[in-house]
């Protein structure tokens, strides 16, 4: 029987290693897998590369990992955090690297990893600082920048409901980066409010089919 449910947070994050590239869903704190992210602390992992839209909010989730010195690098579109500014403090102290990626390019690079695309040309960023060092090429007279996939060793995702096959639905704007990150990692771990019976989710309305999901844990 296919059963992706795991007992607790420790089982959910088991096996994640030092230096892992960790995709963290959410837009600000909405849809952020805070419990899973903080479960990396007792696991003891360090030198993490965090891929997320933001670099943590307040003192929780990614911000806490940064505060505890577990993060080597952040790949994100907008690292300005609300107080206390854990990322900014670490950044100014030269203790953390930043790769700044436009939000749509971040999303598309993650999708490329999930979709088996080796690279793609986007108009975003052409002629700007963020295209420096990247190949630029014209198609139909318009400049495009070559961007590469961002693949995670693990994706930490928050959803509303799951079933034992790992099918997921989300809630309102808490969907955000979660579905595309679920596709883009070798191991996808999901925290959900509720697990429902197989067949209870409408097959027309499943947003993330279970094929992208490895482990599901309930976090109330």
């Amino acid at each position: 029987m296919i059963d992706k449910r795991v007992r607790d947070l420790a089982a959910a994050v088991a096996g994640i290693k030092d230096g892992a590239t960790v995709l963290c869903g959410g837009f600000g704190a909405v849809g952020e897998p805070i419990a899973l992210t903080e479960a990396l602390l007792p696991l003891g992992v360090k030198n993490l590369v965090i891929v997320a839209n933001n670099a943590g909010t307040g003192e929780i989730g990614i911000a806490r990992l940064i505060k505890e010195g577990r993060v080597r690098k952040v790949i994100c579109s907008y690292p300005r955090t609300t107080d206390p500014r854990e990322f900014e403090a670490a950044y100014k102290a030269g203790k953390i690297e930043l790769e700044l990626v436009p939000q749509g390019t971040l999303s598309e690079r993650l999708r490329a990893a999930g979709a088996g695309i080796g690279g793609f040309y986007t108009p975003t960023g052409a002629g700007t600082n963020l295209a420096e060092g990247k190949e630029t090429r014209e198609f139909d007279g318009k400049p495009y920048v070559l961007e590469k996939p961002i693949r995670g060793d693990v994706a930490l995702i928050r959803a509303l409901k799951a079933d034992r096959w790992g099918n997921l639905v989300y809630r309102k704007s808490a969907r955000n980066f979660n579905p595309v990150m679920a596709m883009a990692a070798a191991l996808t771990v999901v925290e959900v409010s509720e697990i429902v019976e197989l067949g209870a989710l409408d097959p027309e309305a499943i947003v993330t089919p279970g094929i992208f999901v490895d482990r599901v844990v309930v976090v109330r």
Partner: protein
Amino acid sequence: MSENAPKPLSRRQMAWRAAQDIPEGAYVNLGIGLPTLCGDYIPKDREIVFHSENGILGMGPAPAKGQEDPDLINAGKQLVTLLPGGSYFHHNDAFLMIRGGHIDLALMGALEVAANGDLANWITNDPHAPPGVGGAMDLAAGAKEVRILLEHTTKDGAPRIKQTCSYPLTAKECVKRIYTNLALIDVTRDGLVVREMVEGLDLAGLQEVTEPKLTLADDWKKLTAPTV
């Protein structure tokens, strides 16, 4: 500036003015800050579909007290609502809409705009703060039309409409229209064309606070807005 002291628009009046130009049925993305205020001033007989890059179409106004939903926010992370006909989707589809030219209009704030429509709105040269770009480059490069709202000058009176941007660019040659507290200016192949100016301002006065050469449209009007 002319003798008869001109009366600049307030920030809310700038938003009001930009809102009047949003056409019926348009798919519109409002940038964080000043552009977001435009949503408050859409003429009542127009149906506009607001897009948010965190996965919403058909975004409505702020929720009534007691109706707040923490899972329903806009790109500025303010609580919002969903109108009937609205939909949710993931970030990748939200930016597909932007990059693919499906957004009719992006209204954005700016640090500077150049004579050729170059836009600088994502980073100052402050070495103390980490840079943040968000969705600005995607919107500037991808929307069908980009219009900018900005104070005509800095607090020190220096022009924000420049021959060449001094700040790093967000996108090249993307701006089509500029709403300031003093004027409404179109970026055209023939340069910057002033369509509207506030009462008490003449072209010479406006040119004084604008770096590139301005042309006055034959059918230029007074830039006015109600008290809002």
